[in-house]
């Protein structure tokens, strides 16, 4: 007997902290008492190249190692990837798409082009978060991975905001207190404002 598992796929570019994003998702979920797994698909590492990473969250131990082909959540960290047809692979009528963009869900829907007619996109499932705007304003750099996860915390029951903050504190600790505080401030801003 298999239990339901929530699957998250994050798309972005090399250098944007895509792998860290899935690690944070899984770590935050473990703080909430869930089982979790995160793993990247690495291309040959180059800054700016498309990168994809995966996270699974479940109440039961996670055994499978296959990549994620039917995402429940799709996070798109870089709006310029919108033309990459592969990012929508396996999207279904429940898939929530969280995208770093200042555009509206209707405008995003128009630009997203599924690879196969089986991959579904619904406007009501698209969440636009101006993560770059917030990151530049609060963190001072275009580092959106923690910022966009605030939108995931808000629009899902995968993990609490507190657990996300705890995960960010732990993961970014080596980068210094100032960086941690800026990230937490950006997370709070997105959670409250968008």
């Amino acid at each position: 007997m298999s239990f339901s598992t929530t699957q998250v796929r994050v798309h972005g570019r090399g250098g944007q902290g895509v792998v860290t994003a899935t690690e944070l998702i899984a770590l935050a979920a473990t703080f909430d008492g869930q089982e979790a797994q995160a793993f990247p698909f690495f291309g040959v590492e180059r800054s700016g190249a498309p990168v994809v990473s995966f996270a699974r969250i479940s109440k039961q131990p996670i055994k499978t190692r296959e990549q994620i082909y039917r995402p429940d959540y799709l996070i798109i960290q870089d709006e310029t990837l919108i033309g990459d047809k592969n990012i929508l692979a396996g999207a279904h009528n429940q898939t929530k798409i969280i995208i770093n963009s200042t555009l509206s869900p209707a405008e995003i829907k128009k630009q997203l082009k599924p690879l196969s007619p089986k991959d579904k996109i619904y406007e009501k499932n698209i969440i636009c978060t101006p993560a770059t705007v917030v990151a530049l304003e609060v963190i001072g750099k275009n580092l959106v991975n923690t910022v966009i996860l605030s939108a995931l915390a808000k629009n899902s029951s995968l993990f609490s905001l507190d657990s996300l903050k705890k995960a960010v504190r732990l993961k970014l600790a080596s980068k210094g207190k100032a960086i941690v505080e800026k990230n937490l401030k950006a997370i709070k801003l997105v959670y409250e404002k968008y």
Partner: protein
Amino acid sequence: MSSTKKQFLEGAAAIAEVINRIKPEVVSAYPITPQTHIVEDLAQRVADNKSAYEYVRAESEFAAASIVLGASATGARTYSATSSQGLLLMAEVLYNISGMRLPVVMTVANRAISGPINIWNDHSDIMALRDCGAILLFAETHQEAIDQHVLAYKIAEFLNLPVLVNVDGFIMTHAFSGCYLPDSKTIKKFLPKRNLVKGEYLNPQFPVTMGVFGGPDSYYLFRQLLQKDLLNSLKNIKKEYADWKKIFPTPKESGTLTSNGLIEYYGSKKPALVIVAMGTICGTIKKVIDDYPKKIGLIKIRCYRPFPSVEIKRALKKTKKVLVLEKCYGLGHESPLKLDLSAALWGEKIDLRSEVLGLGGQDVTEKKITNLIKHYEK
């Protein structure tokens, strides 16, 4: 249950942490993807003055293996890690390490071999070295990798045999998962300091020759002894693993019927088909078994060399069909694990089939495994 807290770690970080707690004296490596994070982590600890081992930067894998050979010959506890072409470059030295009966422990983050160039996972690298005289362990999960590294040192130093712990490159080394890490005190209880006997290691006060010449009248004796000791180590591996899990128990997986240092059996007691596999692919196979309408079993091989033939035969007693799934071709003939099973099951009425999959990082999906079961269970 273990009193240590569950941690959420990258595979490479978990391995580096347990190695640090095992307290090697000399670490030497040449960085190669995908084991990189392990030795980067170990090098950083020395740079930060947080660990006491000597970290020797090598100019190649051949040098790194030679450095741990030399250090081990002086009685030091050593560590190295490599992958793919790096392992091939170590080949000559590895045969010497086992021939000289040195308890070197290494991690192999399994990766495909060129050409074409490919940095992703399969088992072609270690299969090329399967007869090098080392004990070969394979881990499915972070927890198994942690346990097997502690076990590796115990076995290596007790029997004077090298042990290579195999973990799937990227799929384990770069994946984050929950696991339990034993503290240094717990490890020390199981793994005391290396027992050095005067005259069995390099020490200027008690001169001794190592790496001797063996002519036609003696070479075969060395090889016979190595073969005998390797085969006999099966019982030590089983015993030491059981002892370790008593000292450091971790949550048991429901669905596992047999679990020891050599193999794990997962799934049905009366299976229509049993799959035999090694490494991370076993997790995906377990998920498929959980979901599949008919009764299927899995033998996960934890110890591949020496090969646990008796253990496997026992686990297959009620089976008529066996499907080997492995990540390496035996170019020009059958694949390695299939050959090993053919020998182990010779004379048994078992329909033995095999499929090679997951080469060079090709994703092994649940659907693929399900389709293979459907095809072969008939």
